[in-house]
């Protein structure tokens, strides 16, 4: 029991010390650049000043963070639901697939920042245009990964299901969809980080709240510490949402995580041996 716990801790340390060390090194370099005066302070504020600002202005930042998070999550959820439905339709109908694919691809390659102003013209300065840009950003990876997942199911498994006679709905619910979940989660993780970008892009184009607005304001005022603080908070939002999905995946697909885990530990064991 005791050795179990120390083993677990050793595992955590083993996995985290490298990224933590890298982060510390980056902070140190950042600090050195600013204290030695290599770069003017108004161009790059010191880490101390930036984090000091994060603390001082936390209530101001918190309000805007909340707005951006709300737009991101709403956009992500809509993209997730629509993306999965779209993927299911495409997998079950050749016609829908061949009709939708070119449009989907076209919608994906249009630079979102270029069409965002259009949504502002149509929908005003509220949260709607931001959510739409977030949806547009997040939709594509969800569709692609779900289609891949639904198609990855073993044909023998589907043939077997046909001999069991459960019909297409049961086959989908019990076999096809669960089999697609690992791919779906991979897509969702990419999608959530893109949804953050989408929401911020939407805010850049026309808004009076949200982290995109904070950054734009700070930019206008040459307030680089606030600009840096805004960037850090946006990144933290993205990382946090990603980690939440990672956790959801581990809880919902223990069979997948454990297999992956086993493979990785075997590799590590080989590597250290």
């Amino acid at each position, binding site marked *: 029991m005791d050795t179990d716990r120390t083993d677990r801790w050793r595992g955590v340390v083993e996995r985290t010390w490298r990224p933590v060390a890298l982060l510390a090194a980056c902070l140190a370099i950042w600090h050195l650049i600013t204290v030695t005066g290599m770069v003017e302070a108004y161009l790059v504020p010191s880490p101390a000043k930036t984090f000091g600002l994060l603390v001082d202005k936390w209530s101001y930042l918190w309000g805007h963070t909340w707005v951006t998070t709300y737009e991101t999550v709403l956009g992500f959820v809509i993209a997730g639901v629509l993306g999965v439905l779209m993927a299911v339709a495409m997998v079950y109908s050749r016609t829908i697939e061949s009709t939708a694919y070119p449009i989907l691809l076209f919608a994906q390659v249009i630079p979102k920042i270029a069409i965002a102003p259009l949504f502002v013209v149509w929908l005003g300065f509220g949260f709607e245009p931001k959510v739409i840009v977030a949806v547009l950003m997040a939709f594509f990876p969800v569709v692609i990964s779900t289609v891949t997942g639904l198609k990855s199911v*073993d044909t*023998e*498994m589907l*043939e*077997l*299901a*046909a*001999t*069991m*006679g*459960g019909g297409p709905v*049961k*086959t989908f619910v*019990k*076999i096809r969809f*669960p*089999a697609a979940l690992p791919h779906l989660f991979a897509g969702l993780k990419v999608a959530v980080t893109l949804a953050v970008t989408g929401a911020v892009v939407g805010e850049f184009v026309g808004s009076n709240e949200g982290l995109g607005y904070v950054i734009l304001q700070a930019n206008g005022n040459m307030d680089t510490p606030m600009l840096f603080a805004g960037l850090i908070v946006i990144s933290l939002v993205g990382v946090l949402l990603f980690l939440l999905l990672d956790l959801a995946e581990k809880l919902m*697909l223990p*069979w*997948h995580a*454990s*297999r992956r885990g*086993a493979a990785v530990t075997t590799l590590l064991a080989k590597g250290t041996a």
Partner: protein
Amino acid sequence: MSTTLGTTSAVAIDDVSVRFQSKRTEVTAIQQVSIDVAPGEFVSIVGPSGCGKSTLLKLVSGLLKPSSGTVTLLGEQVRGPRHDIGFVFQRAALLEWRSARRNILLQAEMRGMNSAEAGRRAGELIEMTGLSGFENALPHELSGGMQQRVALCRALLHQPRVLLMDEPFGALDALTREQMNVELHRVWRETGTTVLLVTHSIAESVYLANRVIVLTRRPAVVKEVIEVDLPAERDYSATMARPEFASATAHIRDLLGAVTGQD
């Protein structure tokens, strides 16, 4: 001919041909094959790789339509996927997120069987195939032989009158394979199911079957049907030692050597 003197065959393949159309070529996998399997009979099918054995089983299950000829299963012509069979593939094809027991019960869920009844039956099958203690293990925690046993249990759960097996033990080591042969033989004797088994192992084909059907190279036609003259109750090593066993396997080996063109 789907009937023989008034008794309905369990499986009747009547003058069936299968052609696969691809972009440039047309492949004839099976040419005018006729096979009759009596109810409760165990028939093995052997033949060179790629000759059309899997195709034959898919025809019987209705997963594939013949280009010509008819297939009749339990007195009813096969026109689409049939539900009154059990199918075991070469790979176990298990759902990796379901435990052994829940993989077996998939059969019941898909069919909407009474769950208490299905649970009881799954328990019996788990016991019979020696999977006790591994009911809750996930497929990746099971050995290849155990996975194949789970697939066998799943195929037997709904007590099908016809069991189709496509090289079910091909991936197993020799010893596990022998054990599985003995178990399958016992299951067959206890349940009275009609079995069609595709295999690459000549010994397996003879040990298990009443009749062995030898197919030729593609396009497959029936080369010869060998009646296996062995007692119904077959101890593994005693059967191996019998002269009838030796002569049957030698004969089949000769036939296969001849059909694969090493003559």
